[in-house]
């Protein structure tokens, strides 16, 4: 892995690692347990493992890999709904490739496709709209998922469909929101996380303000973080510096992409099309209040949930799954009793094994199969 060595040898990475070590050594005095920092976003998890960033950190800090992988947290009931929609003969069901392999209680979308359902992978919701224009005799459903990063794209696509009057296009909306989810993690009694690296591209849309309550009400420092390995090291250092200097604030390491107020046009489109759901069901975390959005009444004609019957069954995660505890940093992936046995990337039982951005898959794929002494 040439690039990993190059990264670690680089002057900047070395200097940051040294600084981090110095601060942790100071902070460690009088602490009974390591400092825990949560990276919320699956993109960050991916970079951390790809570049072996955890191995560059001293023992006094631990990274907790949060729930921010939209594919991972999709509950089985929702996948079942997708499969049921896709199996309708008039439907062309379109989705991002990432969602194809997520297991439902009966089958995944990939299996549904193999069994004859018309499931198509698209790169963009715009491609789904184009399919609807080209096949006026079919119903084209786009499976919208992801956090605020992808919400503007589906909102703008729906607005375009309405402008053109593409009546055979609809959205199956499963978008989820970042802030209520972080709040749920913070409110859970066994939570021990001391500080946060906040997702860069979500912040590019929503800006800095929505994170203020975390530093104000929960007193946890937070740094909005980019996706490159140096971004992550630098942000870890910034959080530690806040501890060291007794500060607790929202800082923005990713200023080159994240404007403090977010993206006005994107937020406008989101607010026009979507409203908050009472609650949304998460794989591994259960139901979280206000953690998802649905389409407003005005867009009922483009809402697959209203156009077709969608059952939204609640299917409990298998009992042996401990995804919730991993996500909160209470246990490490290898502490889960079925890690690497019944639950592995080929046959994922829990959410965090589904995509390479999930913590358990990342541990498994990178050979961290057990605690090393």
């Amino acid at each position: 892995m040439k690039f990993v060595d190059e990264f670690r040898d680089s002057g900047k990475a070395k200097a940051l690692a040294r600084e981090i070590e110095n601060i942790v050594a100071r902070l460690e005095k009088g602490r009974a347990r390591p400092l825990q920092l949560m990276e919320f976003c699956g993109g960050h998890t991916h970079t951390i493992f790809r570049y072996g960033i955890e191995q560059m950190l001293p023992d006094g800090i631990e990274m907790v890999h949060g729930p921010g992988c939209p594919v991972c947290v999709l509950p089985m009931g929702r996948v079942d709904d997708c499969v049921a929609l896709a199996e309708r003969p008039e439907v062309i069901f379109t989705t991002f490739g990432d969602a194809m392999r997520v297991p439902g209680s009966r089958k995944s979308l990939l299996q549904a496709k193999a069994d004859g359902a018309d499931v198509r992978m698209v790169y963009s919701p715009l491609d789904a709209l184009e399919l609807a224009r080209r096949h006026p005799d079919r119903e084209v459903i786009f499976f919208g998922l992801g956090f605020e990063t992808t919400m503007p794209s589906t909102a703008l696509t729906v607005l375009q469909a309405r402008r053109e009057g593409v009546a055979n296009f609809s959205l199956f909306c499963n978008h989820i929101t970042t802030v209520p989810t972080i709040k749920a993690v913070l409110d859970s009694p066994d939570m021990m996380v001391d500080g946060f690296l906040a997702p860069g591209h979500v912040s590019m849309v929503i800006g800095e303000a929505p994170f203020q309550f975390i530093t104000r009400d929960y007193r946890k420092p937070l740094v909005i973080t980019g996706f490159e390995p140096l971004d992550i090291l630098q942000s870890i250092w910034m959080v530690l510096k806040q501890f060291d200097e007794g500060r607790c604030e929202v800082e923005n390491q990713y200023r080159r992409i994240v404007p403090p107020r977010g993206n006005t046009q994107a937020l406008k489109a989101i607010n026009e099309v979507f409203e908050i759901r009472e609650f949304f069901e998460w794989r591994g975390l259960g139901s979280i209040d206000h953690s998802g959005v649905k389409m407003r009444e005005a867009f009922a004609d483009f809402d697959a949930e209203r156009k077709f019957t969608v059952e939204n069954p609640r299917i409990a995660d298998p009992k042996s799954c401990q995804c919730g505890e991993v996500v909160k940093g209470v246990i490490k992936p290898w502490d889960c009793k079925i890690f690497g046995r019944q639950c592995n990337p080929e046959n994922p039982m829990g959410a965090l094994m589904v995509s390479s951005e999930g913590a358990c898959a990342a541990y498994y794929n990178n050979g961290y199969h057990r605690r090393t002494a």
Partner: protein
Amino acid sequence: MCLGIPGQITEITSEEMLMARVTVAGVSREVNIACIVDDAHPPASCVGDWVLVHVGFAMSRIDEEEARRTLDILEQLGEVQEELSAMRQGAGA
């Protein structure tokens, strides 16, 4: 899906629909530019700009050097090929 990829706007294909042609690592496709146009940046002025593209939408402007560096890193992370093949497939899938 969440990482995005930098590309350069080469032409505006529809002012009305706010669509533009973007070249990403040699692959060209149409993307929507609604999120990066405002009074200070009308569509016509966007040609030549580097942008971060997420699922077919330009989400923010970036400078050229930054764009090249990000492409390098995405290449190392093994993300570029996946993104490009998805892009090429487009609606034809």
